[in-house]
């Protein structure tokens, strides 16, 4: 029969259409506006409406998600910031679009380099979010962020991030990437223990 294929196809569309209402009815209010609802809508079991209503709702961001790097500092006992970066320059060397600028500190008396950056800039207009800087940083000092809502009215005055704007505490790092943080913290502690053991000898 001519037209059978079209009818069969329309059957599929109709099924999708009916499922939307059935699913709304079955899941009730929890389907929209809750984390559970968003999780359901990005799972294999989803049927019916699929879309996530940004900005009221947001997709759940996985831990590995990467968007524009930031610099990590540890909070000292008296609240001072201990910047992890030693300005070794590996991130600036590995950066594919070359959007990282580091000005190394120098001891004013001896003129020798001090392991801390005097200035640190990232041009986030140029940054391609590849994550290589974070991947190759030997001190876990530069980490990819999860914050992607960076729209501004004037990119010329806003989008070159300096050291102040890039610095975020280690507790924030722990919050957005708990698994990575725990793994790196373990390695750091092992290294510190080894160092202490060597110092005792």
């Amino acid at each position: 029969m001519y037209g059978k294929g079209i009818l069969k196809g329309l059957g599929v569309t109709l099924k999708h259409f009916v499922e939307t209402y059935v699913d709304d009815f079955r899941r009730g209010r929890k389907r929209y506006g809750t984390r559970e609802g968003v999780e359901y809508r990005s799972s294999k079991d989803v049927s019916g409406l699929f879309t996530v209503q940004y900005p009221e709702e947001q997709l759940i961001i996985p831990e590995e998600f990467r968007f524009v790097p930031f610099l990590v500092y540890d909070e000292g006992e008296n609240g001072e910031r201990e910047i992890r970066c030693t300005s070794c320059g590996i991130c600036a060397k590995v950066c594919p679009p070359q959007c990282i600028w580091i000005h190394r500190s120098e001891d004013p008396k001896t003129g020798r380099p001090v392991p801390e950056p005097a200035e640190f800039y990232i041009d986030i207009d140029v940054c391609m979010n590849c994550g290589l800087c974070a991947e190759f940083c030997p001190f876990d000092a530069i980490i990819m962020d999860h914050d992607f809502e960076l729209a501004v009215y004037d990119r010329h005055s806003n989008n070159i991030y300096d050291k102040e704007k890039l610095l975020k505490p280690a507790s924030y790092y722990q919050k957005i990437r708990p698994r990575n943080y725990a793994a790196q913290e373990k390695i750091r502690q092992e290294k510190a223990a080894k160092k202490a053991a060597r110092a005792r000898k």
Partner: protein
Amino acid sequence: MTDTTLVAEHPLLERFPEGVTPDERKGYEGFIVAADRLVEFATALRDEFGYDYLSSVTGVDYLPDGKMEVVYHAYKSTGGGALVFKVQVPRENPVVPSLVSVYPGADFQEREAWDLLGIRFEGHPNLKRILMWEGFAGHPLRKDWKEAYFEEEKKPFGSRWPGGAVHRAEDENPFGKNVVYPPDFDPEKWTPVGDEALYAGLREFKKDDDLKTEQVVVNLGPQHPSTHGVFRMVVTLDGETVVRLEPVMGYLHRNHEKIGERNTYLMNIPFTDRLDYLSSMSNNWGYVQAVEKLLGDKIQVPERAEYLRVIMAEFTRIVNHIFAIGTLLNDLGAYFTPMLYALEERELILDIFEAVSGSRMMCNYFRFGGVARDLPPGVYEKMRDLVFERLPRKIDELDRYLTENEVVRARCEGVGVLTPEEAIAFSAAGPVLRASGVPYDVRRADPYGIYDRFEFDVAVRYHGDVYDRYLIRLDEIRQSIRILQQALDQLPEGDVIFGSPKYSMRVPAGEAYGRVEGPKGELGFYVVSDGSANPWRYHVRAPSFINLTALSRMCEGDKVADAIIILGSIDIVLGETDR
């Protein structure tokens, strides 16, 4: 790499005692052919030795030696390794005979080599710029060509560290001063060369026809939703029938290959993501494979990483094909419903990519000697759910939804036919080639990675029309699911990368051509190393670019509305076409 003794005793050398010599440079392979014997050599290669498929044509600028080299990679359409041959010409006046008469698939690639490197191909029927425009000064891939604001020869740039003073490239390179025109060129008075010819059809009358018809030239694109990006087709119409079609491209050109030559090897991986941005994982693989070939035994990919590579590449294929089917239906006028059904499944797979690699589309997941990181907890289960449960069900649904639809069949069957002989001659690749009845799949014909361990069929269809190019994508999705099921079942434990990752490395001098079966066809990367930290030459054999060579042949004689779906059935991504 071919064995040097094999090359020295190759029957080709007996057939051509003069004018053909083995390439004896260290790390290089194949033959060097004298320019005046080239056409004869290629004809013999095709007709007597069975190398009927010319995969890649590109040029290399050996500035220190004062030479230009054109490199050809030919294959047998029945499978097997490459036969590489080269022509060397002086750099000042590089003239090489064109091979379009032997391999029509060389057409666009020779035009590209002329455009970017300034190698003139004698006898080419239409040798004009293809990616740049006529108002462009110079040939940008030449080693002595510098862009308007040129900071340094190679990355990393010295200004970034240790005394990094921030600046914006656009401040150094203000608008109006960043353009150089060729001498005697005035953009105000310029009319494109060849446009006269393009529009000449307007005045063309068929005198002997009873019915007086007039031909009309129509520009489809560059701003046209059906061209999948900024792509232009100049169509000469007789009534509604396409008489001639010329694709015009390059609107998205960014000199990807030059960027790649200034990058270090590692930096190129995220840049390959941006070629065919729908299938970044396959792009990564092609490039990484070429560099791993150069590295040779210095690097071994661990088992688990091999499996992860296959898993990601096959997921990419599903993502790409399902999206291609969706957009093809859009082109047919089935406004957005099939497209959105396709996007649902794509979205679930992109969730997996995001969890594993950190990004939905710009994955940057492959590394030399493995992959960037292992699967985070929970992802393996998610992949299993998709592959064993949801995807097979949803693909069947898509099949039920579209395949027998009478409108789809009436529009697609018998439209845009490409015969197997033409498909091979035009160097078509991927689904376009296989829908024309040539069962050629790099995963089987020249296996890479661990594809020889999996059981799957090379999908093939025999009509070579749009409908078959739709069906073949469904077939391939099913085969990909089959591979994925085996790979997920067999996935071993272990490391995912060889040794500790290094951010800077030296690659032994030589050349390598890595090719993978990307979702759009054979994706090849030709890399030449001079032993330093940056590649000397980095060329992409882009399937969506080369598949377009056959576009005009497919469209001739069909209706103008069919040109849209024929383009849709080739499935191009302009990021890769224009590079």
